[in-house]
């Protein structure tokens, strides 16, 4: 087990470096092909060469390699790595704020919405999958299969907008009109967007919308895995051992069926933490995703790069944890 973890952590390092380099090379190429991004900050006005030079200096954009198309700018990459290691992602082009400040302010919202979505996805998804898998071909099985297909088929922006419109706005407005109705529900849980008064409750619906697609995938994966395992030889052995049906399902079948599900959930958590551009925009949640979308629109490259870097890091760490968890769950991996 120990050797497996060490080996996996060692593999993690080149993966991170490779990802960072790819990101760095893409941005460098962008600058090399389209010119100094500082130019865009002035809009219609033409900056004096002195102003250009000063600002470029401040943003660390005047390295000559940035004018040579195709140059990988290894020197700049090294500097960037050192900066990131010191938790310095540079400053935003427009607002002159530290990128880490901007991300730090947005991250709590994203974490909350991701957690809500994740708990919803894991809990309901596994439950639905197990129930469907135990009675494959039954009513519940068809219900789960059809409803998950529907959820997967509907794009998240349609699902999000429809739920906001009908549940949060129309239904919520009716409840909000009733003064006797508890506000935590009418203004919190059923809020049409983020409300600072209800930091958790008002993220409830956005969280569910965010987790919906992954929930459908989780339910289907659990179902398939269960169906495969209820007919497995070792389940027949468990029956021959005269164990109670509840124990056969709850211990022997479930434990094996959840191995692929846990893996997929771990990756999902990484994805959710990276911010949800669409959901956060629909529900007006000031999280990572919305900041990234806004920065992309205003051309604030350093914020976008910072967020993408962070998202990639979170995703890779989540992947590492999943691999370790996988070995904990499946002894066959552990003793390779």
């Amino acid at each position, binding site marked *: 087990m120990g050797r497996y973890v060490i080996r996996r952590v060692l593999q993690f390092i080149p993966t991170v470096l490779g990802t960072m380099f790819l990101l760095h090379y893409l941005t460098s190429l962008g600058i090399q092909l389209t010119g100094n991004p500082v130019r865009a900050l002035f809009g219609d006005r033409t900056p004096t060469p002195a102003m250009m030079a000063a600002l470029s200096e401040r943003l660390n954009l005047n390295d000559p390699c940035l004018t040579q198309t195709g140059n990988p700018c290894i020197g700049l990459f090294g500097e960037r790595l050192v900066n990131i290691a010191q938790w310095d992602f540079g400053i935003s082009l427009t607002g002159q704020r530290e990128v880490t400040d901007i991300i730090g302010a947005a991250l709590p919202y994203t974490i909350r919405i991701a957690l809500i979505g994740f708990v919803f996805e894991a809990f309901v998804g596994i439950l639905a999958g197990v129930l469907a898998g135990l009675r494959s071909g039954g009513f519940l099985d068809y219900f789960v299969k059809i409803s998950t297909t529907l959820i997967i088929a509907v794009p998240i922006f349609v699902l999000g907008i429809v739920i906001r419109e009908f549940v949060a706005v129309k239904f919520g407005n009716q409840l909000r009109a009733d003064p006797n109705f508890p506000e935590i529900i009418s203004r919190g849980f059923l809020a049409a967007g983020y409300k600072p008064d209800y930091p958790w409750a008002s993220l409830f619906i956005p969280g569910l919308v965010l987790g919906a697609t992954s929930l459908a995938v989780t339910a289907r994966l659990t179902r398939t895995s269960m169906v495969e395992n209820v007919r497995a030889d*070792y389940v*027949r052995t468990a029956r*021959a051992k*005269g164990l109670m049906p509840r124990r056969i399902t*709850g211990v022997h079948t479930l434990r*094996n069926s959840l191995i692929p599900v846990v893996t997929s959930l771990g990756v999902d958590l990484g994805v959710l933490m990276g911010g949800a551009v669409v959901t956060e925009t629909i529900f007006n949640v000031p999280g990572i995703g919305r900041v990234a979308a806004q920065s992309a629109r205003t051309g604030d490259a350093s914020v976008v790069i910072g967020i993408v870097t962070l998202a990639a890091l979170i995703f890779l760490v989540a992947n590492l944890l999943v691999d370790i968890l996988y070995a904990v769950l499946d002894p066959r991996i552990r*003793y390779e």
Partner: protein
Amino acid sequence: MTTEAPVKSPSTARFLSQLDMTAPPLEVRNLHVEFHTTSGEAHAVNGMNFVLSQGETRAILGESGSGKSVTAQAIMGILDSPPAKITHGEILYRGVDLLKLSDEDRRRVRANHIAMIFQDALSALNPVFTVGFQLGELFRKHRGMSRQASKAKAIELLDMVKIPAAKQRVNDFPHQFSGGMRQRVMIAMALALEPEILIADEPTTALDVTVQAQVMGLLSELQREHNMSLILITHDMGVVADVADSISVMYAGRVVEDAPVADIYARPAHPYTKALLESIPRVDLKGQELAVIKGLPPVLTNIPPGCAFHPRCRYAKDNCKVPPEPPHYDVDVNRVAACHYWREVIES
């Protein structure tokens, strides 16, 4: 999870009081099992009959699809139903029909009274739990033992089936054992609660020939020590000759010949048994073409009328091709054959 109290429940006590210890350990009467498939009802077992006496080793011999494993699973009560369905018959354990018991009593019969070993131990053991857990589980759930006591029991069992360094290996997972050792773990698991009857479904098929002999040797040794009755399901005539007392030869879900082991080898009374014996490769006939039974076993959704073996039989005459199927003719005191022409077969 609830633990089963070591104190016998009223229903268990009632079940135990019904047992007639003078009756044979197991008797299967006219058992019929069907599988519901998209291409119709597959008749896997069609009137299976046999008696297992105290301490006896009975081999059930037949090709794949002859219904031997289905019979075993029906006795254990672990058929997947649906699609399987027992349509007829009785399975008498010490005189009590298992098919009439409640699910709960039936469950308690498993492992406590009748246990089973499966063919492929690697897939039959749960890959994510240690063998100690899987052995100990029996004592925790059926005897209400503590984790610690059940682990001690598991080590004892591994010792019994001669697994070296049992104390360390009890914490290992199934995939860390060799094929033969895994099958030993399966045997230990089956014997854990000291059942009266052990069903071994092709216990050595997945093993190397050298390991096969060791495992079979261990099995018959333990059978003697524990005074168990053994049902040995196999398609290997060699294994049968070494350990079985009597043989039931199955074809298309029915016993076609039932005889003491020596008789059947010396003078088979059913053309199918004869053909099986002739198809064993022999050293003294080296260089000659191997004898095969021509044709294929019947499709279970469409079993030929009359004697199911008649399309492949060189003794078959017209009355073999029409219903009813041949009855079990008495060939000798302990011997029956389902062939109209058993005299001809036995003489030739």
